[in-house]
């Protein structure tokens, strides 16, 4: 492929993925309101469009036209920059996520269904999410509000603590696949054992312990119930985004849901076999089926997120820290040692 064509294809891919991601963020919010509504014996949004499907659009317009308040005595630069930092790092991490196999449109145009395949893809995602902490920490500090500050402090402490368990839970998968490239990790999970059971890491590699560590650490990383202490309404008003209104608040909201989607994509790639699944039919179906499997797995993951939100109460802060440091961390280290031993004995 020539350079010009490569750039053209890349730009189209970026625009498409970005559009789909933003739409997915909007409709995850809709899904959450709807599902939690039904769990609590309510209807959720119903007024705007059929099944309330246009509610995200209405919300977007509302956010755009609301008055954008800046409270006095804030640290102006950081107050404005914080939501941007949060949303930029949340949206950028989609760049290395692979959605499907290679596609060839003609003999000269072929491309992977992924914005870019880098050989340190997983590390890039970890790096971007660890930088996203700044958005939350700085918003809490710059707002000049004690509730915001407490929320920001809680969020950064929580995210640093659970990042360790999260990172260690991924090392088992890395040992099994022998690569940081997300595409290669998925390819290592293709095929079946015993004829029927897919060779996903959650079944085959015995990484289900790692999967549950990842699940819990990911809930804490994205500040979701039962780990939503940074924005606990009953004690902190709204936590780090108390002083934010209009589009700046919407940016934090988008960052949270974009992070949820990234976490879901990562869980799918690392533990649930990515786009692997039964493939048949003509070429166009063969291209689209893996993407469908991928999206279905991410959707299932998001549904569990919402399900947990509708089910569990919030942790107390000391429970949160004890759970992270005294349970998840030793468990992830044990998982790492056992996986390494098994792989070493097998080879």
């Amino acid at each position, binding site marked *: 492929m020539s350079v010009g064509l490569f750039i053209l294809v890349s730009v189209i891919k970026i625009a498409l993925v970005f559009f789909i991601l933003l739409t997915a963020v909007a409709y995850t919010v809709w899904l959450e309101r709807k599902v939690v509504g039904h769990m609590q014996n309510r209807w959720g949004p119903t007024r705007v469009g059929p099944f309330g499907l246009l509610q995200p659009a209405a919300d977007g317009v509302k956010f755009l036209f609301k008055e954008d308040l800046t409270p006095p005595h804030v*640290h102006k630069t*950081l107050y404005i920059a914080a939501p941007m930092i949060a949303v930029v790092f949340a949206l950028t991490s989609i760049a290395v996520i692979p959605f499907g196999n290679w596609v060839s449109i003609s003999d000269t145009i072929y491309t992977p269904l992924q914005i870019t395949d*880098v*050989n*340190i893809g997983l*590390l*890039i995602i*970890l*790096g971007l999410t*660890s*930088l996203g*902490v*700044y958005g939350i*920490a*700085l918003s*809490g*500090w710059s707002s000049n509000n004690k509730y915001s*500050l407490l929320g*920001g*402090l809680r969020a*950064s*402490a929580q995210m*640093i603590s659970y*990042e360790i368990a999260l990172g260690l839970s991924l090392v088992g998968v890395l040992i099994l696949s022998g690569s*940081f490239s997300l595409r290669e990790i998925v390819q290592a999970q293709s095929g079946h054992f015993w004829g029927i059971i897919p060779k996903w890491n959650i079944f085959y590699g015995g990484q289900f312990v790692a999967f549950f560590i990842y699940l819990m650490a990911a809930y804490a990383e994205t500040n979701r119930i039962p780990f939503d202490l940074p924005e606990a309404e009953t004690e902190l008003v709204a936590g780090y985004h108390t002083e934010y209104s209009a589009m700046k608040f919407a940016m934090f909201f988008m960052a949270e849901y974009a992070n949820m989607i990234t976490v879901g994509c990562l869980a799918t790639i690392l533990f649930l076999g990515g786009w692997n699944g039964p493939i048949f039919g003509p070429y166009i179906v063969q291209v689209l089926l893996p993407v469908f499997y991928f999206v279905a797995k991410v959707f299932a993951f998001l549904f569990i997120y919402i399900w947990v939100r509708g089910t569990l109460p919030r942790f107390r802060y000391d429970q949160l820290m004890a759970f992270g440091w005294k349970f998840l961390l030793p468990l992830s280290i044990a998982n790492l040692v056992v996986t390494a031993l098994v792989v070493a004995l097998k080879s």
Partner: protein
Amino acid sequence: MHLILFLIFGGVCVAGAVNLLLQHHPIDSALSLVVVMGALAAEYLLLGAEFVAAVQVIVYAGAIMVLFVFVIMLLNAGEEARSGGSRVAWIFGVPGMLIGSVLMAWVLLKHSGNSHVEVGALPGSPQAIGWLLFHDYLLPFEVTSILVLIAIMGAVVLAGHAQSPTRAIEKKEG
């Protein structure tokens, strides 16, 4: 292309470092340091050391600097008073630093000759780094980890010295 990117990120790096010194508020200085770390990571990436670049971002910018910012937020440190610097620093420090950096650049240019390393020619892949750490330099690596462990234990002993949190506060105040 590589040279242009190198100059851009090098410029960002130096600008961040200068800004770090000029800012009055500790949190602005800490954030300038984050910018320096990020620019350094980009330079590593240009050299083909992608693993080192990622670790630079995850460990330094993403963990250590977050803790810096965390501590500044926790102590609620305000703006610092300016003293204008000591006279000794102006007379000896600044010229000394300039002479030192010129000397270092001269020595490096002189002794590296005209041989320069191609971009990406150095072993920077995760495999290469892992082989170096866990094979060639296993003993130094493990000794360093014990050193870090001793530091952690020391911190725990110092922090755990006070019997209870309330007593620690009383001690501080009394």
